[in-house]
């Protein structure tokens, strides 16, 4: 440790390595926490269901979304990104996923909520397949940590369907 610059460099390298180490342990410690989120979605109303002038089907819905994602938050969580997608099958695609609503949840207090809203993003099909269609509404969430790997999970709620005729 011959000179000022030598010692300063050695200290900098060692401190950054130790910092990486404690961040890795912080990230791993997340795995020990228990997680049990829950959610429920009701469709209050189907507002519009029409063909977009010789193009594709479009639906407008009003949703009532209740969710409790508080157990997903640990000391290492920065935010949770949640979105609701409608999933259904058509002859052309085995799985269609259309995102209807999303939100960024910044902390634990905001993670238990109930909102009634019309769909934030348009529910448009590729084609004319939506009459009488049965679909699932799935709540997906992505947990974004302060350090470490992001992971995602979902709750699938089946059993919703659209009317047989346009209105």
């Amino acid at each position, binding site marked *: *440790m011959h000179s000022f610059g030598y*010692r300063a460099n050695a200290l900098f390298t060692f401190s950054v390595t*130790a910092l990486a180490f404690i961040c890795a342990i912080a990230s791993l410690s997340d795995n020990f926490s228990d997680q049990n989120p829950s959610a429920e979605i009701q469709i209050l109303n189907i507002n519009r269901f029409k063909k977009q002038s010789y193009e594709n089907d479009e639906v407008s819905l009003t949703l009532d979304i209740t969710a409790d994602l508080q157990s997903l938050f640990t*000391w290492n969580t920065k935010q949770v990104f949640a979105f609701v997608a409608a999933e259904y099958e058509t002859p052309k695609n085995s799985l269609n996923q259309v995102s209807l609503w999303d939100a960024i949840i910044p902390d634990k207090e905001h993670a238990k909520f109930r909102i009634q809203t019309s769909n934030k993003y348009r529910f448009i099909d590729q084609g004319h397949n939506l009459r009488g269609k049965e679909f699932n509404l799935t709540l997906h969430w992505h947990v974004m940590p302060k350090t470490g790997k992001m992971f995602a999970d979902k709750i699938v709620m089946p059993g919703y369907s659209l009317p047989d005729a346009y209105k």
Partner: protein
Amino acid sequence: MDWQGQKLAEQLMQILLLIAAVVAFVVGYTTASFRTMMLIYAGGVGVTTLITVPNWPFFNRHPLKWLEPSEAEKHPKPEVVVSSKKKSSKK
């Protein structure tokens, strides 16, 4: 800094940084505050820098004894003998 001081400085740096990291993690985990962990660790790095990087006197407790300048003149360095065709250098 002398040789003993250098060894002391290196050991102090490693031990202090490790202690700062462990204390930071434990306190941060138990208080569930990432920010606390980062602040404690940053404080530990700052303290360690102050203790080990500047050239404090306590790192120089076993100073090396260099030869005095007056002694050095009495015993000049041996001259390299060049071939006889060139002039020999002055003593």
